[in-house]
Protein backbone atom coordinates (compact mmCIF):
# COMPACT_ATOMS: atom_id res chain seq x y z
CA UNK A 1 0.00 0.00 0.00
CA UNK A 2 1.36 3.37 -0.87
CA UNK A 3 -0.30 6.74 -1.13
CA UNK A 4 -0.08 8.44 -4.51
CA UNK A 5 -0.40 12.05 -5.62
CA UNK A 6 -3.82 11.15 -7.07
CA UNK A 7 -4.92 9.78 -3.69
CA UNK A 8 -4.02 13.04 -1.96
CA UNK A 9 -5.88 15.11 -4.54
CA UNK A 10 -8.91 12.81 -4.32
CA UNK A 11 -8.93 12.98 -0.51
CA UNK A 12 -8.63 16.77 -0.64
CA UNK A 13 -11.71 16.85 -2.86
CA UNK A 14 -13.63 14.49 -0.56
CA UNK A 15 -12.57 16.62 2.42
CA UNK A 16 -13.35 19.97 0.78
CA UNK A 17 -9.88 21.30 1.58
CA UNK A 18 -7.74 23.12 -0.95
CA UNK A 19 -4.14 21.94 -0.88
CA UNK A 20 -1.26 23.97 -2.28
CA UNK A 21 1.12 22.33 -4.75
CA UNK A 22 4.07 22.47 -2.34
CA UNK A 23 2.07 20.67 0.38
CA UNK A 24 1.38 17.60 -1.73
CA UNK A 25 4.78 15.85 -1.59
CA UNK A 26 5.18 16.11 2.23
CA UNK A 27 1.58 14.92 2.64
CA UNK A 28 2.18 11.84 0.49
CA UNK A 29 5.05 10.84 2.79
CA UNK A 30 3.18 11.53 6.03
CA UNK A 31 -0.06 9.84 4.98
CA UNK A 32 1.95 6.89 3.70
CA UNK A 33 3.63 6.50 7.11
CA UNK A 34 0.26 6.60 8.86
CA UNK A 35 -1.48 4.20 6.47
CA UNK A 36 1.52 1.86 6.66
CA UNK A 37 1.20 1.80 10.43
CA UNK A 38 -2.55 1.26 10.64
CA UNK A 39 -2.31 -1.55 8.07
CA UNK A 40 -0.85 -3.78 10.79
CA UNK A 41 -4.43 -4.73 11.65
CA UNK A 42 -4.20 -7.04 8.62
CA UNK A 43 -2.44 -9.46 11.00
CA UNK A 44 -5.63 -9.92 13.00
CA UNK A 45 -8.22 -12.54 12.20
CA UNK A 46 -11.54 -10.75 12.52
CA UNK A 47 -13.63 -13.34 10.68
CA UNK A 48 -17.09 -13.50 12.26
CA UNK A 49 -16.36 -10.73 14.79
CA UNK A 50 -19.09 -8.11 15.26
CA UNK A 51 -17.88 -4.49 15.03
CA UNK A 52 -18.15 -2.15 18.04
CA UNK A 53 -19.30 1.28 16.90
CA UNK A 54 -20.35 2.41 20.37
CA UNK A 55 -18.99 0.98 23.62
CA UNK A 56 -22.36 0.62 25.32
CA UNK A 57 -24.09 -0.77 22.22
CA UNK A 58 -26.53 2.11 22.28
CA UNK A 59 -28.61 2.50 19.19
CA UNK A 60 -31.30 5.07 18.55
CA UNK A 61 -32.12 7.04 21.69
CA UNK A 62 -35.58 8.50 21.31
CA UNK A 63 -37.23 11.49 22.90
CA UNK A 64 -40.68 12.94 22.54
CA UNK A 65 -41.14 15.18 19.53
CA UNK A 66 -41.70 18.31 21.56
CA UNK A 67 -40.33 21.80 21.11
CA UNK A 68 -37.89 22.69 23.87
CA UNK A 69 -36.53 26.09 24.79
CA UNK A 70 -33.04 26.59 23.41
CA UNK A 71 -30.69 28.82 25.35
CA UNK A 72 -29.76 30.91 22.30
CA UNK A 73 -32.24 32.74 20.09
CA UNK A 74 -32.31 33.25 16.36
CA UNK A 75 -30.50 36.61 16.51
CA UNK A 76 -27.67 35.19 18.65
CA UNK A 77 -27.10 32.41 16.16
CA UNK A 78 -27.33 34.56 13.04
CA UNK A 79 -24.86 37.00 14.62
CA UNK A 80 -22.22 34.28 14.36
CA UNK A 81 -22.11 34.29 10.58
CA UNK A 82 -19.82 36.51 8.52
CA UNK A 83 -22.51 37.97 6.30
CA UNK A 84 -26.19 38.14 6.99
CA UNK A 85 -29.08 40.05 5.47
CA UNK A 86 -32.79 39.95 6.37
CA UNK A 87 -32.24 36.84 8.52
CA UNK A 88 -30.56 35.10 5.61
CA UNK A 89 -26.91 33.94 5.57
CA UNK A 90 -25.09 35.26 2.52
CA UNK A 91 -22.63 33.12 0.56
CA UNK A 92 -20.89 33.62 -2.81
CA UNK A 93 -22.70 32.57 -5.96
CA UNK A 94 -23.36 28.85 -6.28
CA UNK A 95 -23.55 28.63 -10.08
Amino acid at each position, binding site marked *: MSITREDVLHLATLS*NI*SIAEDEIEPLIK*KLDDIVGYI*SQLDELDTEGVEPTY*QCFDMENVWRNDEIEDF*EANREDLLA*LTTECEDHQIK*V*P*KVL
Partner: protein
Amino acid sequence: MKIADKNTKAVDLVREALEKAKQYEDYHCFISMNEARALEKAREIDEKIAKGEKVGRLAGVPYALKDNYLSPEGVTTAAAKMLDNFPAPITATAVKKLEDEGAIMIGRTNLDAYAHGSSTENSYFGPTANAYDKERVAGGSSGGSAVAVALGIVPFALGSDTGGSIRQPASFNGVYGVKPTYGTVSRYGVVAMASSTDVMGCFAKTADDANLVMDIMAGKDPKDSTTLDKFWKEDLPDPKGKKIGLITDFMGDGVDSEVVRCVKEYAEKLKKAGYEVEEISIPMLKYGLAIYYIVQPAEVASNLSRYDGVRYGFRSSKTTDLDSLYQETRNEGFMPENKRRILVGNYVLSSGYFDAYYLKAQKARTLLINAYKDAFKKVDALLCPVAPAPAFKFGEKINDPLAMYMEDVMSVPQSMAGMPSISVPAGITKDGLPVGAQLSGWRGDDQMLLAIAKSLEGVE
Protein backbone atom coordinates in the same frame (compact mmCIF):
# COMPACT_ATOMS: atom_id res chain seq x y z
CA MET B 1 -8.64 22.86 48.01
CA LYS B 2 -9.72 26.07 49.69
CA ILE B 3 -13.41 26.84 49.49
CA ALA B 4 -14.85 30.25 50.32
CA ASP B 5 -16.53 30.67 53.71
CA LYS B 6 -16.82 33.27 56.47
CA ASN B 7 -13.03 33.33 56.92
CA THR B 8 -11.91 32.83 53.34
CA LYS B 9 -13.11 35.39 50.81
CA ALA B 10 -13.88 34.19 47.28
CA VAL B 11 -12.45 37.47 45.99
CA ASP B 12 -9.10 36.67 47.62
CA LEU B 13 -9.04 33.15 46.17
CA VAL B 14 -9.78 34.48 42.70
CA ARG B 15 -7.31 37.39 42.98
CA GLU B 16 -4.57 35.06 44.09
CA ALA B 17 -5.21 32.77 41.12
CA LEU B 18 -5.24 35.69 38.69
CA GLU B 19 -1.98 37.02 40.13
CA LYS B 20 -0.31 33.63 39.81
CA ALA B 21 -1.58 33.36 36.23
CA LYS B 22 0.17 36.68 35.49
CA GLN B 23 3.32 35.58 37.30
CA TYR B 24 3.54 32.45 35.14
CA GLU B 25 2.42 34.12 31.90
CA ASP B 26 5.56 32.96 30.07
CA TYR B 27 4.40 29.32 30.29
CA HIS B 28 1.45 30.26 28.09
CA CYS B 29 -1.16 28.14 29.89
CA PHE B 30 -3.99 30.47 28.94
CA ILE B 31 -5.44 31.61 25.64
CA SER B 32 -7.68 34.19 27.29
CA MET B 33 -8.43 35.41 30.82
CA ASN B 34 -11.83 35.97 32.40
CA GLU B 35 -10.70 38.46 35.03
CA ALA B 36 -13.58 40.94 35.28
CA ARG B 37 -16.34 38.35 35.27
CA ALA B 38 -14.45 36.10 37.70
CA LEU B 39 -14.04 38.90 40.25
CA GLU B 40 -17.68 39.92 39.84
CA LYS B 41 -18.81 36.35 40.48
CA ALA B 42 -16.50 36.10 43.52
CA ARG B 43 -18.06 39.26 45.00
CA GLU B 44 -21.54 37.79 44.51
CA ILE B 45 -20.50 34.64 46.38
CA ASP B 46 -18.92 36.66 49.22
CA GLU B 47 -22.15 38.65 49.56
CA LYS B 48 -24.18 35.45 49.77
CA ILE B 49 -21.87 34.09 52.47
CA ALA B 50 -22.08 37.37 54.40
CA LYS B 51 -25.87 37.16 54.31
CA GLY B 52 -25.75 33.54 55.49
CA GLU B 53 -27.22 32.23 52.24
CA LYS B 54 -26.41 28.75 50.95
CA VAL B 55 -23.46 28.51 48.58
CA GLY B 56 -22.27 25.57 46.48
CA ARG B 57 -19.72 22.86 47.13
CA LEU B 58 -17.11 24.74 45.10
CA ALA B 59 -17.96 28.23 46.34
CA GLY B 60 -15.34 30.69 45.18
CA VAL B 61 -12.95 28.05 43.89
CA PRO B 62 -11.07 29.35 40.84
CA TYR B 63 -10.60 26.92 37.97
CA ALA B 64 -9.19 26.88 34.45
CA LEU B 65 -11.22 25.70 31.47
CA LYS B 66 -9.80 23.96 28.44
CA ASP B 67 -10.67 26.22 25.54
CA ASN B 68 -12.84 23.64 23.79
CA TYR B 69 -15.68 23.97 26.35
CA LEU B 70 -18.33 26.42 25.22
CA SER B 71 -19.49 29.18 27.53
CA PRO B 72 -20.66 32.67 26.68
CA GLU B 73 -17.86 34.30 28.70
CA GLY B 74 -15.31 35.38 26.07
CA VAL B 75 -14.64 33.30 22.98
CA THR B 76 -14.20 29.53 22.65
CA THR B 77 -11.38 29.01 20.16
CA ALA B 78 -10.48 25.29 20.42
CA ALA B 79 -7.01 26.82 19.75
CA ALA B 80 -7.91 27.01 16.06
CA LYS B 81 -7.95 29.94 13.68
CA MET B 82 -11.31 28.56 12.54
CA LEU B 83 -12.87 29.64 15.85
CA ASP B 84 -10.60 32.44 17.00
CA ASN B 85 -13.53 34.85 17.07
CA PHE B 86 -16.33 32.52 18.17
CA PRO B 87 -18.47 33.84 21.04
CA ALA B 88 -20.24 30.65 22.09
CA PRO B 89 -24.03 31.04 22.22
CA ILE B 90 -24.46 28.12 24.65
CA THR B 91 -22.88 26.76 27.84
CA ALA B 92 -21.42 23.28 28.17
CA THR B 93 -23.35 21.17 30.69
CA ALA B 94 -20.16 20.40 32.65
CA VAL B 95 -19.39 24.12 32.98
CA LYS B 96 -22.94 24.91 34.03
CA LYS B 97 -22.84 22.27 36.77
CA LEU B 98 -19.55 23.60 38.16
CA GLU B 99 -20.73 27.20 38.05
CA ASP B 100 -23.96 26.21 39.81
CA GLU B 101 -21.77 24.93 42.66
CA GLY B 102 -19.93 28.25 42.82
CA ALA B 103 -16.74 27.44 40.90
CA ILE B 104 -15.23 30.43 39.10
CA MET B 105 -13.55 30.16 35.71
CA ILE B 106 -10.52 32.46 35.64
CA GLY B 107 -9.32 31.70 32.13
CA ARG B 108 -9.39 29.42 29.13
CA THR B 109 -6.44 27.13 28.63
CA ASN B 110 -4.33 26.23 25.64
CA LEU B 111 -4.62 22.96 23.69
CA ASP B 112 -3.65 21.42 20.39
CA ALA B 113 -6.13 22.83 17.88
CA TYR B 114 -9.36 20.79 18.10
CA ALA B 115 -7.52 18.62 20.68
CA HIS B 116 -5.52 17.00 17.86
CA GLY B 117 -2.10 16.38 19.31
CA SER B 118 -0.02 15.21 22.24
CA SER B 119 2.15 18.26 22.97
CA THR B 120 0.02 21.45 22.70
CA GLU B 121 2.39 22.49 19.90
CA ASN B 122 -0.47 22.26 17.40
CA SER B 123 -2.16 25.31 18.93
CA TYR B 124 -2.81 28.24 16.59
CA PHE B 125 -1.73 30.46 19.51
CA GLY B 126 1.65 28.79 20.11
CA PRO B 127 2.73 26.07 22.55
CA THR B 128 2.54 25.76 26.35
CA ALA B 129 5.73 25.09 28.30
CA ASN B 130 6.13 22.18 30.72
CA ALA B 131 5.79 23.12 34.39
CA TYR B 132 9.11 21.39 35.21
CA ASP B 133 11.25 22.40 32.23
CA LYS B 134 10.45 25.35 29.99
CA GLU B 135 12.31 23.81 27.05
CA ARG B 136 9.94 20.88 27.04
CA VAL B 137 6.34 20.39 25.97
CA ALA B 138 3.34 20.47 28.28
CA GLY B 139 1.96 17.33 26.69
CA GLY B 140 -1.44 17.39 25.16
CA SER B 141 -3.89 18.01 24.06
CA SER B 142 -5.01 19.49 27.41
CA GLY B 143 -1.53 20.94 28.07
CA GLY B 144 -2.59 24.37 29.33
CA SER B 145 -4.91 22.92 31.99
CA ALA B 146 -2.28 20.45 33.24
CA VAL B 147 0.37 23.16 33.61
CA ALA B 148 -2.06 25.60 35.26
CA VAL B 149 -2.72 23.01 37.99
CA ALA B 150 0.93 21.93 38.26
CA LEU B 151 2.05 25.54 38.78
CA GLY B 152 -0.56 26.00 41.49
CA ILE B 153 -2.45 28.71 39.61
CA VAL B 154 -5.73 26.84 40.15
CA PRO B 155 -6.60 23.81 42.29
CA PHE B 156 -8.38 22.12 39.41
CA ALA B 157 -8.86 22.49 35.67
CA LEU B 158 -11.00 20.82 33.06
CA GLY B 159 -9.71 18.78 30.19
CA SER B 160 -11.09 16.45 27.55
CA ASP B 161 -9.61 13.05 26.72
CA THR B 162 -10.20 11.21 23.45
CA GLY B 163 -7.08 9.03 23.48
CA GLY B 164 -4.93 10.36 26.33
CA SER B 165 -5.38 14.14 26.21
CA ILE B 166 -5.88 14.40 29.98
CA ARG B 167 -3.66 11.55 31.16
CA GLN B 168 -0.48 12.28 29.19
CA PRO B 169 -0.19 16.00 30.11
CA ALA B 170 -1.04 15.05 33.73
CA SER B 171 1.88 12.60 33.65
CA PHE B 172 4.21 15.17 32.03
CA ASN B 173 3.43 17.74 34.74
CA GLY B 174 3.08 15.62 37.86
CA VAL B 175 -0.62 16.08 38.62
CA TYR B 176 -3.70 13.87 38.74
CA GLY B 177 -5.56 13.45 35.47
CA VAL B 178 -8.95 11.73 35.40
CA LYS B 179 -10.45 10.22 32.25
CA PRO B 180 -13.78 8.76 33.38
CA THR B 181 -15.83 5.93 31.89
CA TYR B 182 -17.28 6.95 28.52
CA GLY B 183 -20.61 8.70 29.09
CA THR B 184 -19.93 9.76 32.70
CA VAL B 185 -19.95 13.50 31.95
CA SER B 186 -22.05 15.20 29.28
CA ARG B 187 -20.25 16.12 26.05
CA TYR B 188 -22.88 18.77 25.33
CA GLY B 189 -21.22 22.09 24.55
CA VAL B 190 -17.72 20.74 24.08
CA VAL B 191 -16.11 20.95 20.63
CA ALA B 192 -16.41 17.42 19.27
CA MET B 193 -13.35 15.43 18.25
CA ALA B 194 -14.13 11.68 18.08
CA SER B 195 -17.61 11.15 19.47
CA SER B 196 -17.27 7.48 20.40
CA THR B 197 -14.31 8.10 22.75
CA ASP B 198 -14.51 11.80 23.77
CA VAL B 199 -14.82 12.15 27.55
CA MET B 200 -14.75 15.15 29.86
CA GLY B 201 -12.55 15.01 32.94
CA CYS B 202 -10.27 17.01 35.17
CA PHE B 203 -6.83 17.74 36.57
CA ALA B 204 -6.24 18.16 40.29
CA LYS B 205 -3.55 17.87 42.95
CA THR B 206 -5.31 15.26 45.10
CA ALA B 207 -7.66 12.32 44.61
CA ASP B 208 -10.27 13.97 46.85
CA ASP B 209 -10.30 17.18 44.81
CA ALA B 210 -10.66 15.23 41.57
CA ASN B 211 -13.45 13.15 43.13
CA LEU B 212 -15.40 16.25 44.17
CA VAL B 213 -15.14 17.85 40.71
CA MET B 214 -16.13 14.62 38.96
CA ASP B 215 -19.05 14.04 41.34
CA ILE B 216 -20.41 17.46 40.41
CA MET B 217 -19.95 17.03 36.65
CA ALA B 218 -21.16 13.41 36.33
CA GLY B 219 -24.66 12.37 35.41
CA LYS B 220 -27.32 11.96 32.78
CA ASP B 221 -27.91 14.88 30.44
CA PRO B 222 -30.86 14.86 28.04
CA LYS B 223 -28.70 16.94 25.69
CA ASP B 224 -26.16 14.10 25.32
CA SER B 225 -27.91 10.81 24.59
CA THR B 226 -24.75 8.81 25.36
CA THR B 227 -24.56 9.94 29.00
CA LEU B 228 -24.98 7.24 31.64
CA ASP B 229 -27.21 7.40 34.70
CA LYS B 230 -25.18 8.88 37.51
CA PHE B 231 -23.07 6.21 39.18
CA TRP B 232 -20.57 8.59 40.83
CA LYS B 233 -20.93 8.75 44.63
CA GLU B 234 -19.88 11.52 46.96
CA ASP B 235 -17.38 9.37 48.87
CA LEU B 236 -14.62 7.17 47.52
CA PRO B 237 -15.08 3.41 48.12
CA ASP B 238 -12.77 1.29 50.26
CA PRO B 239 -10.15 -0.15 47.89
CA LYS B 240 -8.83 -2.66 50.41
CA GLY B 241 -7.84 -6.04 49.01
CA LYS B 242 -7.99 -5.03 45.34
CA LYS B 243 -5.82 -6.97 42.96
CA ILE B 244 -3.77 -4.99 40.48
CA GLY B 245 -2.26 -6.25 37.23
CA LEU B 246 1.00 -4.70 36.04
CA ILE B 247 0.84 -4.78 32.25
CA THR B 248 4.14 -6.28 31.07
CA ASP B 249 3.44 -5.43 27.42
CA PHE B 250 4.04 -1.74 28.28
CA MET B 251 7.09 -2.19 30.52
CA GLY B 252 9.67 -3.43 28.02
CA ASP B 253 11.13 -2.44 24.66
CA GLY B 254 10.69 1.16 23.59
CA VAL B 255 9.84 2.39 27.08
CA ASP B 256 12.23 4.83 28.79
CA SER B 257 14.13 3.14 31.63
CA GLU B 258 13.28 5.95 34.07
CA VAL B 259 9.57 5.57 33.27
CA VAL B 260 9.84 1.83 33.91
CA ARG B 261 11.65 2.49 37.20
CA CYS B 262 9.01 4.97 38.44
CA VAL B 263 6.09 2.67 37.56
CA LYS B 264 7.83 -0.34 39.15
CA GLU B 265 8.38 1.71 42.30
CA TYR B 266 4.70 2.63 42.30
CA ALA B 267 3.85 -1.09 42.02
CA GLU B 268 6.13 -1.76 45.01
CA LYS B 269 4.35 0.92 47.03
CA LEU B 270 1.03 -0.70 46.17
CA LYS B 271 2.34 -4.04 47.47
CA LYS B 272 3.59 -2.43 50.67
CA ALA B 273 0.18 -0.86 51.15
CA GLY B 274 -1.34 -4.34 51.07
CA TYR B 275 -2.54 -4.65 47.49
CA GLU B 276 -1.89 -7.80 45.56
CA VAL B 277 0.12 -6.92 42.44
CA GLU B 278 0.71 -9.46 39.70
CA GLU B 279 2.13 -9.24 36.20
CA ILE B 280 -0.30 -9.58 33.33
CA SER B 281 0.12 -9.64 29.57
CA ILE B 282 -2.60 -8.47 27.17
CA PRO B 283 -1.14 -9.00 23.69
CA MET B 284 -4.15 -7.32 21.99
CA LEU B 285 -3.04 -3.96 23.43
CA LYS B 286 -0.36 -3.62 20.80
CA TYR B 287 -3.11 -3.10 18.20
CA GLY B 288 -4.80 -0.33 20.19
CA LEU B 289 -2.96 2.51 18.50
CA ALA B 290 -3.70 1.26 14.98
CA ILE B 291 -7.38 0.82 15.86
CA TYR B 292 -7.48 4.32 17.32
CA TYR B 293 -5.75 5.99 14.39
CA ILE B 294 -8.42 4.57 12.07
CA VAL B 295 -11.57 5.13 14.13
CA GLN B 296 -10.60 8.53 15.55
CA PRO B 297 -9.68 10.24 12.22
CA ALA B 298 -12.86 8.81 10.70
CA GLU B 299 -14.93 10.44 13.45
CA VAL B 300 -12.83 13.61 13.23
CA ALA B 301 -13.45 13.85 9.48
CA SER B 302 -17.16 13.61 10.13
CA ASN B 303 -17.27 15.99 13.11
CA LEU B 304 -15.12 18.64 11.43
CA SER B 305 -17.18 18.68 8.26
CA ARG B 306 -19.40 21.27 9.97
CA TYR B 307 -16.65 23.92 9.72
CA ASP B 308 -17.47 25.31 6.32
CA GLY B 309 -17.24 29.08 6.82
CA VAL B 310 -20.97 29.54 6.33
CA ARG B 311 -22.82 29.62 9.64
CA TYR B 312 -20.10 30.50 12.15
CA GLY B 313 -16.36 30.72 12.59
CA PHE B 314 -13.70 31.88 10.18
CA ARG B 315 -14.53 32.53 6.53
CA SER B 316 -11.75 32.90 3.97
CA SER B 317 -11.75 36.05 1.86
CA LYS B 318 -10.07 34.23 -1.04
CA THR B 319 -13.31 32.96 -2.46
CA THR B 320 -14.92 33.14 -5.85
CA ASP B 321 -17.77 30.70 -5.46
CA LEU B 322 -19.34 28.45 -2.83
CA ASP B 323 -16.94 25.52 -3.42
CA SER B 324 -13.88 27.73 -3.00
CA LEU B 325 -15.43 29.23 0.13
CA TYR B 326 -15.52 25.76 1.71
CA GLN B 327 -12.11 24.71 0.43
CA GLU B 328 -10.17 27.88 1.22
CA THR B 329 -11.85 28.34 4.60
CA ARG B 330 -10.92 24.81 5.62
CA ASN B 331 -7.40 25.16 4.22
CA GLU B 332 -6.70 28.38 6.13
CA GLY B 333 -8.78 27.70 9.24
CA PHE B 334 -7.38 24.27 10.16
CA MET B 335 -3.87 23.48 11.40
CA PRO B 336 -1.81 20.98 9.35
CA GLU B 337 -2.54 18.18 11.86
CA ASN B 338 -6.30 18.83 11.64
CA LYS B 339 -6.09 18.51 7.87
CA ARG B 340 -4.03 15.31 8.02
CA ARG B 341 -6.60 13.70 10.33
CA ILE B 342 -9.47 14.71 8.08
CA LEU B 343 -7.67 13.30 5.03
CA VAL B 344 -6.80 10.03 6.80
CA GLY B 345 -10.37 9.80 8.11
CA ASN B 346 -11.83 10.22 4.66
CA TYR B 347 -9.31 7.71 3.34
CA VAL B 348 -10.35 4.95 5.75
CA LEU B 349 -14.03 5.71 5.14
CA SER B 350 -13.82 6.00 1.37
CA SER B 351 -15.19 3.57 -1.14
CA GLY B 352 -12.85 0.62 -1.61
CA TYR B 353 -11.08 1.09 1.75
CA PHE B 354 -13.98 1.10 4.21
CA ASP B 355 -13.95 -2.67 4.80
CA ALA B 356 -10.17 -2.94 4.92
CA TYR B 357 -9.69 -0.14 7.44
CA TYR B 358 -12.74 1.28 9.18
CA LEU B 359 -14.80 -1.90 9.49
CA LYS B 360 -11.68 -3.94 10.28
CA ALA B 361 -10.77 -1.51 13.08
CA GLN B 362 -14.25 -1.65 14.60
CA LYS B 363 -14.07 -5.45 14.62
CA ALA B 364 -10.58 -5.32 16.14
CA ARG B 365 -12.06 -2.98 18.76
CA THR B 366 -14.41 -5.79 19.79
CA LEU B 367 -11.41 -8.12 20.19
CA LEU B 368 -9.64 -5.47 22.28
CA ILE B 369 -12.68 -5.06 24.55
CA ASN B 370 -12.90 -8.85 24.94
CA ALA B 371 -9.20 -8.97 25.89
CA TYR B 372 -9.86 -6.38 28.63
CA LYS B 373 -12.89 -8.34 29.84
CA ASP B 374 -10.68 -11.42 30.20
CA ALA B 375 -8.06 -9.41 32.10
CA PHE B 376 -10.64 -8.11 34.56
CA LYS B 377 -11.63 -11.69 35.39
CA LYS B 378 -8.15 -11.97 36.94
CA VAL B 379 -7.54 -8.50 38.40
CA ASP B 380 -9.55 -5.47 39.57
CA ALA B 381 -7.36 -2.75 38.09
CA LEU B 382 -4.51 -2.44 35.63
CA LEU B 383 -1.27 -0.53 36.05
CA CYS B 384 1.08 0.72 33.34
CA PRO B 385 2.90 3.91 32.34
CA VAL B 386 0.92 6.75 30.74
CA ALA B 387 3.37 7.40 27.91
CA PRO B 388 6.59 5.72 26.78
CA ALA B 389 8.83 8.59 27.92
CA PRO B 390 8.74 11.79 29.99
CA ALA B 391 8.09 15.22 28.42
CA PHE B 392 10.09 15.74 25.22
CA LYS B 393 11.69 18.91 23.85
CA PHE B 394 9.83 21.41 21.67
CA GLY B 395 10.09 20.56 17.98
CA GLU B 396 11.25 16.99 18.57
CA LYS B 397 8.16 15.31 17.12
CA ILE B 398 6.08 18.05 15.56
CA ASN B 399 7.12 17.23 11.97
CA ASP B 400 6.72 13.50 12.35
CA PRO B 401 3.02 12.72 12.93
CA LEU B 402 3.60 9.01 13.48
CA ALA B 403 6.20 9.66 16.20
CA MET B 404 3.70 12.00 17.88
CA TYR B 405 0.95 9.36 17.61
CA MET B 406 3.25 6.86 19.42
CA GLU B 407 2.85 9.09 22.50
CA ASP B 408 -0.68 7.70 22.75
CA VAL B 409 0.20 4.01 22.54
CA MET B 410 -0.51 3.30 26.24
CA SER B 411 -3.55 5.55 26.61
CA VAL B 412 -5.72 4.84 23.57
CA PRO B 413 -6.67 1.20 24.24
CA GLN B 414 -8.69 2.19 27.33
CA SER B 415 -10.41 4.92 25.30
CA MET B 416 -11.43 2.47 22.59
CA ALA B 417 -12.96 0.28 25.32
CA GLY B 418 -14.76 3.17 27.09
CA MET B 419 -12.89 2.40 30.32
CA PRO B 420 -11.91 4.79 33.12
CA SER B 421 -8.24 5.53 33.46
CA ILE B 422 -6.32 7.95 35.63
CA SER B 423 -2.81 9.33 35.66
CA VAL B 424 -1.28 9.52 39.13
CA PRO B 425 2.05 11.19 39.99
CA ALA B 426 4.45 8.27 40.44
CA GLY B 427 7.93 9.74 40.58
CA ILE B 428 10.59 12.00 39.10
CA THR B 429 13.26 10.98 36.60
CA LYS B 430 16.95 11.61 37.29
CA ASP B 431 16.61 14.62 34.94
CA GLY B 432 13.91 16.06 37.19
CA LEU B 433 10.86 15.29 35.02
CA PRO B 434 7.63 13.88 36.45
CA VAL B 435 6.31 10.46 35.48
CA GLY B 436 2.74 9.28 35.96
CA ALA B 437 1.43 5.83 36.69
CA GLN B 438 -1.73 4.90 34.86
CA LEU B 439 -4.45 3.00 36.71
CA SER B 440 -7.28 1.65 34.57
CA GLY B 441 -10.42 -0.19 35.52
CA TRP B 442 -13.55 -1.67 34.01
CA ARG B 443 -16.41 0.70 33.14
CA GLY B 444 -17.90 2.26 36.23
CA ASP B 445 -14.88 1.53 38.44
CA ASP B 446 -13.59 5.12 38.20
CA GLN B 447 -13.78 5.85 41.91
CA MET B 448 -12.02 2.61 42.87
CA LEU B 449 -9.02 3.86 40.88
CA LEU B 450 -9.06 7.18 42.72
CA ALA B 451 -9.41 5.37 46.04
CA ILE B 452 -6.36 3.21 45.29
CA ALA B 453 -4.36 6.32 44.32
CA LYS B 454 -5.52 8.15 47.43
CA SER B 455 -4.37 5.33 49.68
CA LEU B 456 -0.81 5.91 48.43
CA GLU B 457 -0.81 9.70 48.83
CA GLY B 458 2.06 10.72 51.07
CA VAL B 459 3.56 7.20 51.06
CA GLU B 460 7.32 7.38 50.38
